[in-house]
């Protein structure tokens, strides 16, 4: 966002909590409790140094689907106050900024002379979505933009500048100043406009910490700040896919280089299927499937060909016996290569969850950080309906793959007991200052302005009302550009 104001007449102060590199002392400010679903250590879940979490993202980019913006009757609290069409021009700018291909998400742009084609499904009920992978030199935004920002005459970057409170006027109509804590003393910053861009956990934390005037937290008149914390629910190796025809080459779906850049495909149900079956948006990613059984068989065969006993012989034999299905699949692919050119691939699922008001970011009543500010508590929740949607989406995929003659999917969840599945979250922290035109249902309005406060805005995935299956960064950048345009208009 700061960069969008470069070479304008407006002065911008960029306040970064950390320094230029990862530092344990800065990351320690993330420490907090996890009281809901198991989650990663908060000290790792987002980054406090220049460039933020782009310092460790997978660089997968994809826009949200049009259905993600719609009000879906089977998804409570769904619907964005903006449309996908309204965001398209900003997605285009975001793609240019990240130096993506010209039509980055059109599957036909990634076909190599008739090879590695997206699969054809009957009735187009399953679609092949493109995820583009940002090139390394373009993805670490701290490194990429540092020189530009240092050279800018109207953008000042302050490192180790920790915002500890956003202080409004007595009527709570506008922000008066920010209280900044550093290891060398405290400061204040005043501006015409303030944009909170600290991530989906820290954004609500800062609002909840800002209690000097509005005691429940700034912008929290309706107890929404921090609620609706959402993550993408991921299931690694939920199934395997065995192709039964040469047209089911998974090449389109595996990460690969192309003249247009780096991409991978994924499978997702089309909007009709989601609507008819009342499903949440989800995607299925493929990776080469190498079960333990097959890996051990390879070791045994290598040992046999070299006339050497491989290390861990008993373990390898046990793996082969225990995973005989996997061994058989790979062996079959070797025996009949003309029919089964490709080995089975593993499928992983990534799905959105229903907006859940009980899933939330809170403040710890007891623990405080080194600036004497209450630490965060994360209570991530999702429901049986969320899990059921993943199961049903997989069922649809199973049926459509076989109905289209592509191949066979085998589900790997033992006894179909999803209660035993290790559901992983991601580092996608969304929903905690959600967007809604009504202050009783959202923290920010359609322009990402905090309801009731004329000069405070929020940037980032904390404003997402729903989540789709796409990684959030591309939409974060598009919304940041949109907000920048809005603020430029306000400043004029």
């Amino acid at each position, binding site marked *: 966002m700061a960069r969008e104001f470069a070479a304008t007449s407006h002065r911008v102060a960029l306040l970064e909590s950390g320094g230029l590199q990862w530092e344990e002392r800065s990351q320690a400010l993330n420490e907090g409790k996890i009281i809901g679903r198991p989650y990663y250590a908060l000290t790792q879940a987002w980054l406090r140094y220049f460039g933020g979490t782009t310092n460790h993202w997978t660089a997968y980019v994809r826009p949200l689907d049009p259905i993600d913006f719609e009000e879906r009757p089977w998804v409570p609290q769904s619907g964005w106050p903006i449309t996908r069409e309204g965001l398209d021009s900003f997605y285009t700018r975001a793609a240019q900024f990240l130096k993506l291909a010209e039509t980055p998400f059109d599957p036909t742009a990634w076909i190599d002379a008739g090879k590695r084609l997206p699969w054809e499904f009957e009735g187009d009920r399953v679609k092949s979505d493109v995820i583009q992978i940002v090139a390394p030199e373009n993805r670490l935004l701290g490194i990429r933009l540092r020189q530009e920002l240092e050279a800018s005459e109207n953008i000042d970057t302050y490192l180790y500048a920790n915002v500890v409170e956003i202080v409004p006027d007595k009527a709570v109509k506008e922000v008066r100043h920010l209280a900044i804590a550093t290891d060398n003393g405290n400061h204040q910053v005043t501006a015409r406009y303030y944009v909170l861009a600290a991530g989906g956990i820290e954004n609500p934390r800062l609002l909840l910490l800002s209690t000097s005037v509005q005691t429940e937290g700034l912008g929290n008149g309706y107890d929404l700040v921090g609620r609706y914390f959402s993550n993408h629910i991921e299931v690694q190796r939920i199934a395997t896919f065995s192709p*039964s025809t040469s047209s089911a080459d998974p090449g389109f779906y595996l990460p690969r280089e192309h003249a247009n850049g780096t991409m991978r495909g994924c499978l997702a149900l089309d909007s009709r299927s989601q609507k008819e079956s009342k499903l949440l948006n989800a995607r299925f990613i493929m990776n080469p499937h190498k079960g333990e059984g097959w890996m051990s068989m390879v070791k045994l065969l290598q040992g046999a060909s070299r006339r050497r006993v491989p290390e861990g012989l008993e373990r390898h034999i046990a793996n082969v016996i225990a995973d005989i299905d996997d061994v058989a699949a790979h062996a079959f692919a070797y025996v009949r290569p003309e029919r089964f050119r490709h080995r089975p691939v593993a499928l992983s699922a990534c799905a959105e969850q229903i907006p859940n008001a009980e899933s939330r970011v809170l403040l710890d009543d007891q623990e405080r950080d080194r600036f004497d500010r209450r630490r965060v508590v994360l209570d991530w929740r999702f429901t049986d309906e969320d899990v059921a949607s993943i199961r049903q989406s997989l069922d649809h995929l199973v049926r459509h793959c076989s109905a289209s003659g592509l191949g066979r999917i085998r589900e790997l969840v033992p006894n179909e007991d999803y209660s035993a599945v290790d559901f992983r979250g991601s580092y996608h922290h969304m929903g905690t200052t959600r967007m809604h035109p009504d202050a009783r249902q959202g923290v920010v309005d359609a322009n990402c302005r905090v309801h009731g406060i004329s000069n405070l805005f929020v940037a980032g995935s904390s404003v997402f009302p729903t989540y789709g299956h796409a990684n959030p960064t591309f939409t974060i950048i598009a919304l940041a550009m949109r907000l920048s345009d809005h603020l430029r208009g306000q400043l004029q």
Partner: protein
Amino acid sequence: MSTPFSIDRRSAMRLLASIGLAGSTRPQEILAGISRSVKDPGFDTVNGFFSNLESASYLGAAYLRIRPEEADFRHLCQALGIPRSSEGPAGKVPGGRLAESITQKHRADFRNARVLKLAGWSLSYTELRLSALVYLGDADAEAESKDS
């Protein structure tokens, strides 16, 4: 007229147990060969539908243990829309369009959720019945060889 097709969970578990007891044969070898595209070279006998007849026969035997009322060659052929050959078992059922019609039935089963899930695999009702035909054909052939 074919009987309504349904398998309850208990029967499905019995079917699965039967396959598990069938020596080293697993459903995997059967299933890897089943979903053939109509555009593929095709097959013109029921046996040609399967890449591993031994596995298909085991699956068919297991299926008929839980659905003994379907253990009739004519009934199965009728249910599957296969012309019953006067020459005998499934391996000799003629008809160039057989591949297309069976494949279409098999795919329609998936389209309409007429599938049974076994050990994570989804099997169409068509392929379960075809497996039963293979088993019955084997049983016929074995009986004939004993008589001769």
